[in-house]
């Protein structure tokens, strides 16, 4: 049985700052214990609704930034969609939040100083800046491709321009950067910068497209998926997706413990939301099953 390399902790954190970033909300929480264990790609699971809440599942957010201030702060970015995130958006400085983290398998980083393209869709780009920072400390060249439906949904364009050698922005309505999707410009960027690897985070459809481009160029691609979770710690079994293992066998793996970072070509994007007939333990897969 594989042990998780980093032991998560549960902390009651204090909200330090809240801010609006275009269409998104960002919360900075003093969360000692999580910060020192954090590596790029980790996420946190946040309880919502306060004590006695009727909302039983935790919300998972990838970590945008960690800082050593005040004993350690964690920042995460989200959209106020449902009642849980709406509650989070109403938090103010000095409110407390129950966090569990850091969770998940972080992004593996290259040993050598190579050139990496970081691709972010919507607020998925929030997690890429910690990756960029770690890559640059290893002497890697970092280039950004960020995209979203419209200008106010592109997260972190300014910071990407400061950190990246080049930054290419796309919006579907043409309100910022190139009109189109990240996958339209990605082949050009990879060719121009002679990229050695791709890191991506965003909606599943985007990750599928980014993986296809990277496979075409025959360079490694790491994707961080955003599946819906109830717990974040690997007990609820709801965040599974079909992933091909080292032995060539497809398994329904939990994106919270085996992910959220996967090798892109190992994820069966076409089969997400189904049980592929050849997955281990699939109904009618040759072995008898209960039921």
């Amino acid at each position, binding site marked *: *049985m594989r*042990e*998780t390399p980093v*032991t*998560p902790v*549960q902390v009651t954190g204090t909200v330090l700052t809240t801010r609006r970033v275009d269409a998104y909300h960002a919360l900075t929480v003093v969360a000692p214990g999580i910060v020192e264990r954090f590596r790029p790609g980790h996420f946190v699971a946040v*309880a919502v609704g306060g004590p006695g809440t*009727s*909302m*039983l*599942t*935790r919300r998972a957010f990838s970590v945008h930034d960690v800082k050593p201030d005040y004993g350690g702060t964690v920042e995460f970015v989200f959209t106020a969609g449902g009642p*849980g995130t709406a509650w989070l958006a109403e938090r103010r400085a000095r409110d407390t939040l*129950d966090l*569990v983290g850091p969770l998940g398998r972080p992004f593996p980083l290259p040993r050598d100083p190579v050139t990496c393209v970081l691709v972010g869709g919507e607020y998925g780009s929030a997690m890429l800046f910690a990756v960029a920072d770690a890559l640059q400390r290893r002497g890697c060249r970092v280039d950004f491709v960020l995209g979203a439906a419209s200008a106010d949904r592109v997260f972190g364009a300014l910071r990407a321009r400061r950190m990246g050698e080049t930054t290419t922005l796309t919006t579907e309505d043409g309100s910022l950067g190139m009109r189109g999707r990240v996958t339209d410009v990605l082949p050009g960027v990879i060719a121009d910068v002679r990229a050695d690897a791709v890191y991506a985070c965003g909606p599943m459809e985007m990750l599928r497209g980014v993986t296809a481009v990277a496979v075409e160029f025959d360079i490694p691609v790491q994707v961080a998926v955003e*599946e*819906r979770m*109830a*717990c974040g*710690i*690997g*007990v*609820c*079994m*709801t*965040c*599974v*997706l079909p992933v091909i293992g080292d032995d060539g066998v497809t*398994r*329904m793996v939990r994106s919270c*413990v085996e992910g959220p970072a996967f090798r892109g070509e190992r994820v069966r994007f076409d089969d*997400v*939301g*189904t*049980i592929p007939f050849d*997955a*281990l*333990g*699939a*109904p009618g*897969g040759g*072995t*008898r*099953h*209960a*039921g």
Partner: protein
Amino acid sequence: MPVDMRTYLGHVELANPITTAAGCAASGAELAQFFDLGRLGAVTTRSITMAPRAGRPTPRMAETPSGLLAAVGLQGPGVDAFLARELPWLAQRNIRTVVSIGGGTVAEYTALARRLTDAPGVTAVEVNLSCPNIEDRGRVFALDGAASAEVVASVRSVMRYDVPVVAKLSPDALDVVSVARACVDGGADALSMINNPLGMSIDTDAMRPSLAAVTGGLSGPAIRPLAVRCVWQVHAALPGVPIIGMGGVLTGRDAFEFVLAGACVVAVGTALFHDPYAGLRVLRELEEILAARGFHRLADAVGLAHRPPGATTRHRTDFEESPL
């Protein structure tokens, strides 16, 4: 003075009455990152099946008011991998383990019991008669007393004599007491209730069912009154049978409610998704509640709500501690 929290599942003594609910603690290792699982009375595994199971497609989960609707479909590694890796991992740490088993036929339950009978580290076997997630909706054993009894009798006949067999019941049964009675007649040493009632939710934006499996098992505090009712009715009808009570236990108060209704063991399930420490917290809170009400032993509170109106809450002295 500390409260004596020891309890009995059949003849097996547990250090305290708190266990995890089946399917809510994965392999055990996930929660062990947070605390020593040995501090719980027992850990109940997910339902083990003969072959590996990939489970249901996603989305598998929808949050409902004070509840969680889930259709995981008994995803698990199968009995071979369970016996090779997960059970030894638990046994090495001296964690009391209740192994839940699930099958599609009486023969499959029996085969599972045969595989478990010589495995070290099995404290008890819980027969999942009622998982609403199972692929073939045509056969939910727990709805039918005769079918449930057949499974229980068959498992009991092959299981080691010193391993209690627990029958897990469904509140979807028309008459939970008659199913409970049939299971006890079939040889069940204890009963466990409740499994998730079947529920459904519709995504009003997509105008489609929220779950890929359409229906799912409802859990969480939303089902607690249903669970307390089942425990109450079964304890009233079969006062001598140990009951593992579960259904939306979030706090020590909730666990105490089950104890008063007649449960001698209380399982924590969905709460673990919200708070990985829920089991330990519920145990501590339950002990505090018992102490605050002047109980010296947990056993004195079991089923106490059944006393006739007007009777005092005097502690039961009509039985001595079992020499077992």
